[in-house]
């Protein structure tokens, strides 16, 4: 479904991504693991159209080339990104945020069913639909972010560090919700620092380091990989 081939990305002279290739299949959940500065966020931004990839990069979604598309065009093909820091509209209400999620042409007609779907997944949002988002807790804001992304009826949902800044209890709740989203048939591409939790809901994973993909495997293999354990899971424990 998503095919990234030879993706390179520079910020001026700083190379953020160097010849990265990866695939996400239909209904598949894929995590990208790597230290800070490995280029994980740049990868998601490059796919979403927020940053223009270098010449020669190829990104295809359902066969459609999107490497030079603007963010709103990428969204119309069925890819939604929840950026690091969530990117919700703090000065707007919950229902305004969600309504904007269905701004895309592909999602407008199904707006009402999408609302029901999101409120079914996060009943708390239904109770607080008139509340301004910047008055909500981090976990609730993350629900708004996920809900808003689902409103655009994506086929692939990309999340950049969704657990960042959340309390451990809330993180578990978040991953339970993501698991439900995954079971509904969506593909997920997740960049996450909580390696164990993300590998538990994932099918496959990639290892990223200094702008390159250095390894890949199924989630269960990666969970048992000594190198992964040493680097991310704290092998001493």
């Amino acid at each position, binding site marked *: 479904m998503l095919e990234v081939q030879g993706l390179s990305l520079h910020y001026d002279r700083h190379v953020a991504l160097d010849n990265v290739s990866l695939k996400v299949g239909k209904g598949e959940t894929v995590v990208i693991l790597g230290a800070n500065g490995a280029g994980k966020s740049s990868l998601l931004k490059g796919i979403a159209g927020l940053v223009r990839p270098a010449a020669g990069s190829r990104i295809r979604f359902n066969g459609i080339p999107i490497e030079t598309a*603007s*963010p*709103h065009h990428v969204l119309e093909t069925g890819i939604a990104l929840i950026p690091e820091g969530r*990117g919700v*509209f703090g*000065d707007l209400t919950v229902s305004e945020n969600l309504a*904007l999620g269905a701004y895309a042409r592909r*999602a407008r007609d199904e707006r009402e069913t999408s609302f029901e779907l999101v409120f079914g997944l996060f009943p708390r949002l239904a109770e607080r639909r008139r509340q301004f988002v910047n008055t909500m807790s981090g976990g609730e804001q993350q629900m708004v972010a996920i809900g808003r992304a689902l409103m655009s009826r994506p086929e692939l949902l990309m999340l950049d560090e969704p657990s960042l800044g959340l309390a451990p209890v809330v993180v578990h709740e978040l991953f339970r919700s993501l698991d439900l989203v995954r079971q509904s048939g969506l593909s997920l591409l997740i960049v996450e620092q909580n390696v164990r939790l993300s590998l538990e809901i994932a099918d496959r994973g990639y290892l990223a380091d200094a702008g390159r993909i250095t390894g890949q495997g199924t989630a269960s293999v990666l969970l048992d990989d000594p190198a992964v354990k040493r680097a991310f899971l704290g092998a001493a424990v």
Partner: protein
Amino acid sequence: MLVTAILSGLVLGGTYALLAMGLTLQYGIARIMNLAYGELIIVAAFLAYTLFATLGLSPVWTLFIAIPAGFALGWGIYGVLMQPLVRRARTPAGLEIDSILATFGLLFVIQGLLLVSFGANFTSYSYLNVAVDVFGTKLAANRLIALALAVVLGGAIYFALTRTLWGTALRAVSVSPVSASLVGIDVDRAARTAFALGGALAAAGGVVISMYQTFTATSGVVFTMKALIIVIMGGVGNILGALSAGLVLGLAETLVATYVDPGLTLATTYGLFIAILLWRPTGLFGRAAR
């Protein structure tokens, strides 16, 4: 006398609110500080004057020409002058500085053209200058119409921005352009639309002002300054803030002019401005600092 002062204050305040809403759309959504904003107001005022003086056309009808023309002019100015700046701007602050310089130049170009065409004299025309009884006091009919127009136009824009998905999308761009692009909003187009809407509001405001005030080819700067002060007092990008701060300023100016001294209106404006900023640095309805 109090009722008269309050009514005149509402007329002035309503006009200010209309003008400030346009500027806050341009500044808050398109992120362009348009110093030539007042010139657009004066162009519309001269348009109303010319059509009234030559064809006897009522300024209310002129609105139907001025509003679309203001929109088209804003759309055009954005495309020709602003888009190149937006494309090359690396940071929002960079765009702000570039746009201030570019529109500062535009200000003098438009002002020069106005001076050549109309000269530097005070201009006014007498439209419906008859007294009407309101709440036991007399007010010129043109002022009443100006107030009604400000309420209708301001209300329509406010409704469109807060109650429709289209308007919510524009406000989303003002909150966060990056997030807006991620929900599928074409941010560049939204910015251009907001800039053009600002132009339409400036034109509407200019026509309304010409109905009851004297103006000159060079008085645009005063309106830009006042609109800017109102925008900052109300909180940048905040429509409700612009509305209420505009009304407050109009009322304050008129009350001071009536009861203290007309020479103190400008001092009142700035005094109020400083007081509000000391009390609430992000404006009456501004966002909390983050």
